[in-house]
């Protein structure tokens, strides 16, 4: 465990080590606190947008708390910067290095009517808390006949590839949590989305697991409203209209998929791109409507393909749209290996893998 701890504690340097990865909807350069394009809107990267959401959450509800490993000084990804200074060490604090303790503590805090915003330093380390999330948080309301709930609990965790994270700083464990009635799973694709969705999660009366694409923490920059706003949960968004094929994804993968859409367009293929945003309970209707229009579906995620959430989407859509489908549902996902360090470029569901799948699906 101590070795693992050492590794995870170097996380503070991660942002600066991040290799460049394009995010097509936004400038790739970092414009931290850059000049406001319009009043009340600022260019923010994703960690700053998260940070702003946490400031807003703590400011708007005195019974809200932010805690986790190393959050007090600002967190290894800087998401909690300035919170302890502004709101005090009793509302923003470090916890011992113990994920089951963090989530158990958060459940108890939330059960007393507080908003408990717990940070798990990396999604790869969420597993010691699995029991607390699956057997406790998810069933808290149901098992008590709605006498008690821990709906104020929000679990934030950076997830996904980052270019050099290897086995234990790269995983996308969302599918494990999508198998658990009683929690919500939400993943934002960009800074503006991150702020609005996180505020919704914090204020949602159900426990939520919120995975943050760590590759985009510094890389993705977007105009983010400074005010307090929320984006709806369980509502997918058609990010890009198209007529030949529907692409569904979430989080960091959205930008890769968008690049594939642009390249496909050059070859005369019109792609519709959907950001699912909330994985459970998910917006089946939006995906269904799109697939009924395009007749084709491609799902892409970084997590291993077998048992990934893509399988669930595929199955549901086949059930609903079988007669409208003109090709098998395609999945472009991570491979069924542990997340490999040197082999990361081979493992990843890259733009060209997606592009190839788009073409073969359309040409089926």
């Amino acid at each position, binding site marked *: 465990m101590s070795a693992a701890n050492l590794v995870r504690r170097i996380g503070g340097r991660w942002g600066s080590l991040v290799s460049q990865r394009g995010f097509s909807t936004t400038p790739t350069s970092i414009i931290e606190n850059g000049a406001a394009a319009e009043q009340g809107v600022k260019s923010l990267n994703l960690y700053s947008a998260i940070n702003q959401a946490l400031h807003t959450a703590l400011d708007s509800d005195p019974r809200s708390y932010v805690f986790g490993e190393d959050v007090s000084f600002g967190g290894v990804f800087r998401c909690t910067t300035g919170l302890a200074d502004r709101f005090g060490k*009793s509302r923003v*604090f470090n*916890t*011992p290095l*113990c994920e*089951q*303790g963090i*989530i*158990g*503590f*958060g*459940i*108890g*805090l*939330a*059960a*007393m*009517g*507080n908003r*408990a915003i717990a940070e798990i330093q990396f999604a790869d380390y969420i597993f*010691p808390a699995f*029991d*607390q999330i699956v*057997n*406790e948080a998810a*069933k*808290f*309301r*149901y*098992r*008590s*006949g*709605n*006498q*008690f*709930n821990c*709906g104020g609990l929000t679990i934030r965790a950076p997830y996904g590839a980052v270019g050099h994270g290897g086995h234990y700083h790269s995983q996308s464990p969302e599918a494990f949590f999508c198998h658990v*009635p*009683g929690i*919500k799973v939400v993943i934002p694709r960009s800074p503006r989305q991150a702020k609005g969705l996180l505020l919704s999660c914090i204020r949602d*009366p*159900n426990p939520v697991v919120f995975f943050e694409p760590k590759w985009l923490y510094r890389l993705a920059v977007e105009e983010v409203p400074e005010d307090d706003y929320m984006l709806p949960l*369980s509502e997918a968004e058609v990010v890009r209209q198209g007529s030949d094929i529907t692409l569904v994804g979430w989080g960091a993968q959205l930008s890769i998929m968008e690049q594939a859409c642009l390249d496909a367009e050059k070859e005369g293929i019109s792609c519709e791109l959907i950001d699912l945003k909330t994985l459970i*309970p*998910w917006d*089946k*209707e939006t995906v269904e409507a799109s697939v009924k229009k395009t007749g084709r579906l491609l799902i892409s995620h970084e997590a291993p393909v077998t048992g990934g959430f893509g399988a669930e989407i595929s199955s549901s859509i086949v059930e609903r749209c079988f007669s409208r489908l003109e090709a098998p549902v395609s999945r472009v996902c991570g491979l069924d290996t542990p997340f490999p360090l040197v082999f990361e470029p081979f493992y990843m569901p890259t733009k060209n893998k997606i592009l190839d799948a788009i073409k073969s699906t359309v040409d089926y």
Partner: protein
Amino acid sequence: MTTQILGRSRTNLHLHKNLSFLLGYLVSKSTATSSSSSFQSGGVPFVKCRHAPPPYASSLLGNNSATRLCFWRSESTKAEAQLDLQHYVSEDEDEQVIDFPGGKVAFTPEMTFMAESGQKRVPCYRVLDNNGEPVTFSNYVQVSKEMAVKMYSTMITLQTMDNIFYEVQRQGRISFYLTSAGEEAVNIASAAALSSDDIILPQYREPGVLMWRGFTPQQFADQLFGNTNDFGKGRQMPIHYGSKKHNYLTVSSPIATQLPQAVGAAYSLKMEGKSACAVTYCGDGSTSEGDFHAALNFAAVMEAPVVFICRNNGWAISTPVEQQFRSDGIVVKGQAYGIRSIRVDGNDALAVYSAVHTAREMAIREKRPVLIEALTYRVGHHSTSDDSTKYRPVDEIEYWKMARNPVNRFKRWVERNGWWSEKDELELRSRVREQLLQAIKAAEKEQKPPLEDMFNDVYDQLPSNLKEQERELRETMKKHPSDYPSDVPL
């Protein structure tokens, strides 16, 4: 004689500590033992009174006339003295110390490994002996007649409830049951020592706490039968009680998960400035779970007003404590985490009452966790799905059932005080029995919760997938009605 001497030296030690606390006297001796002996040689008078609290105690205790502390500190103050790390190092020893994050540590040329456990086992605090006689020199929180009678009556009610529901399960009328036999004192005396504002996060063998708080025989029966009046809407196995009104969080089957949650609840109470604490229960088996250690560590670091009550009943289903842990049981784990701890005779209601009462005071006043290890015994089987004679000797069970019975012991004390008679006993037992039989009859007749309760409360609102699944299920049920129980209202 030996125990008396032990007792005296311990008393000396905590008097010493109290004085140092009050007078700002800095303890610079290196060990608790030497400071204790130096104190004795210093000639400060040994307090002989058994019942008068030290003069400084009254201001700390408030004006609670129902209870009175003889000594306001618990024996566990000894642990506190040892934990005061700075006392190991004096200022003029700067070159002899390593200035390490967390405080200075003295160097030593001696290569000494700490022992794996203390030379003697931590003694077990008790007030009443096996015959219900108060032990000489015992310090305890006084219990009024009214309180004592209520405690005893509730123990009998719990016992009666267990006997009847156990039989009801054996008759196949409910699917499962689990008794508290042998652990009535831990259940009832701990509950009695708390305030109704304290938040209970139970494991599953503490129905007596809920009973003490006013959960009725009917409410117990409704849960066991999983009928429409069950607060849990028939979703959980029998004995998974919970009641918002009684500040008793709903039981879940996984053990120890409630412990870190109790720390979060306690932290909330502290932040709200409430004069209440969180109280959480677990068994000896739970102490091997990660959640136990997470909870103790979090509680200490967060300075959370939480009382951990571990019912060490010797057996985790078939696993005896020798196969559960090493060293000296549970009480010693507290100190490693920086938590005041006490081992108490869990079959002595007065000892449990005193320890929990004092622990609660410390937890709330000083914003700190306290660990209580109650030595008791699971006289019954683990549950109705278990036959404990397969793995433990019948003699052992009989010994604890008869010679060390916690209810009988407390009864002797209550009777000796002239507060209870055989007539009271007969009246109570027949009244409780009648109430329970009525409750069972009513619970059994009550209908099951409606089908919609299968889908409600997964989330605060019904999401579309559940709406769809409910619709589909109802269609299937129309086609195949005989596949489904007829007693669930649609």
